[in-house]
């Protein structure tokens, strides 16, 4: 059965109905969510995460079909990287990954399980700045390290068919490497972002205003043609950033 996520419109903060009509998202598609801060991007992701039956402040309805019932009921159908930059649980990275895998029901996916924690930590360390240790308490991770761990964990442990990513560019991690790791053909991916390059690389963007979906814009060929030029500028900025933060001068 094909996986489809159906999003039925609700209302914006003024109670006006969203005019976007019913949206259907399919695996392999990357949709970005754009709009000024406070315009409802995070709210939209929260509605999708909960597969809201219509009891959220927007009244939207989100239905995911083609996914086994046990995955839906376990709460692991929709993975989400929120803007949270901190862990609160009093566990080490290793304990946390192990418990999360058990909660997911894939604790025996890797028989040793210790390797899974190492794998997740290694992947996270490839995305973050200075590496953390697998036996380090979660609460001592920096904001960027915590985000990198959430990214690695959501793919390697949670492995959800739908993935929501909230402003990955603010995380202080390599956002392009993170997105390359997160986006897979078999997933439906939504990314809330202020980054024009991420928007233009996606298949379409939902533009938010006053809490509602105001426009649905498919990325045009003309826009796609701009990606190469913008990527060059972006790479230049990245090199500069790295140079300065390692103590270099211009």
């Amino acid at each position, binding site marked *: 059965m094909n996986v489809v996520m159906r999003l039925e419109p609700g209302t914006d903060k003024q109670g006006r109905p969203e005019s976007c009509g019913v949206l259907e998202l399919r695996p392999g598609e990357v949709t970005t969510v754009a709009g000024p801060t406070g315009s409802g991007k995070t709210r939209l992701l929260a509605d999708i995460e909960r597969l809201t039956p219509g009891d959220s402040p927007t009244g939207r309805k989100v239905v995911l079909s083609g996914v086994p019932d046990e995955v839906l009921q376990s709460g692991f159908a929709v993975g989400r990287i929120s803007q949270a930059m901190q862990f609160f649980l009093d566990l080490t990275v290793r304990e946390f990954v192990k418990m999360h895998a058990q909660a997911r029901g894939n604790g025996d996916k890797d028989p040793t399980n210790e390797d899974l924690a190492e794998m997740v930590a290694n992947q996270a360390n490839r995305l973050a700045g200075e590496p953390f240790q697998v036996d380090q308490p979660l609460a001592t991770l920096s904001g960027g390290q915590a985000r990198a761990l959430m990214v690695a964990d959501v793919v390697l*442990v949670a492995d959800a068919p739908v993935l929501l990513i909230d402003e990955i560019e603010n995380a202080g991690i390599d956002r392009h490497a993170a997105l390359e790791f997160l986006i897979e053909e078999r997933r439906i991916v939504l990314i809330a972002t202020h980054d024009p390059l991420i928007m233009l690389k996606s298949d379409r963007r939902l533009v938010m205003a006053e809490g509602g979906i105001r426009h649905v814009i498919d990325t045009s060929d003309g826009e796609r043609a701009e990606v190469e030029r913008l990527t060059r500028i972006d790479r230049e900025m990245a090199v500069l950033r790295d140079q300065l933060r390692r103590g270099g001068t211009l």
Partner: protein
Amino acid sequence: MKLAVVGGVHASGKTSLILHVARHAARQGLTTGVYKIDAMEAGDDQAYGRHDIPAVVHAAPDICPDHEAMGVLDDAYSWGLAKGLDLLVIETAGLCHRCSPFLGRFLSICAVSGLAGILAPAKMRPLVEGADIVVLTRSEMISQAERQVFLDRLRELNPSALVMHVDGLTGEGTLPVARAMIGRPDSVLLPLEPLRARLPMGYCHFCQGPGAGRELGL
């Protein structure tokens, strides 16, 4: 009138949960009232007053609020009937969690804060294990992965309960709790209603009654 008991540590999100339940009940034309027992008077009646929810806040400075709750159950029940309530919620914040304020036939709801440690549920085992509904509150404050771990731990402790998470700010997730409370048959308070938890054997001299606070007790 239906009766439900909501228990949980101080600041675990009980009041926010009840406010949202009362909002859902009001939409169906049902009146909710709250009889709250706390160790100290902390002005919670104002939180309910702001939402026009009838409330009595009862301070229990000398014994555990959960214990006090059992002692004033009759008063609370008569108060609820006199007010013409459709739903009476007993809200109590116990102290040591060796037992729980849950009674045999009444819907029992336990609130656990998502910001508490992962060992917290096991430390208040009688409360978590004795509940019909276990609610993880402040779920909006923690990452999804942490929430999934926390919910799994709660389900492990109480596999037969309805375990859910709610966002205290928007009230998302509170509708099923309200439905469970409202959907029950009316409650009749009988004398000697059995407690769900086993009571501890004795009382600590630090906390028991007048004379408490002296090192050697009574």
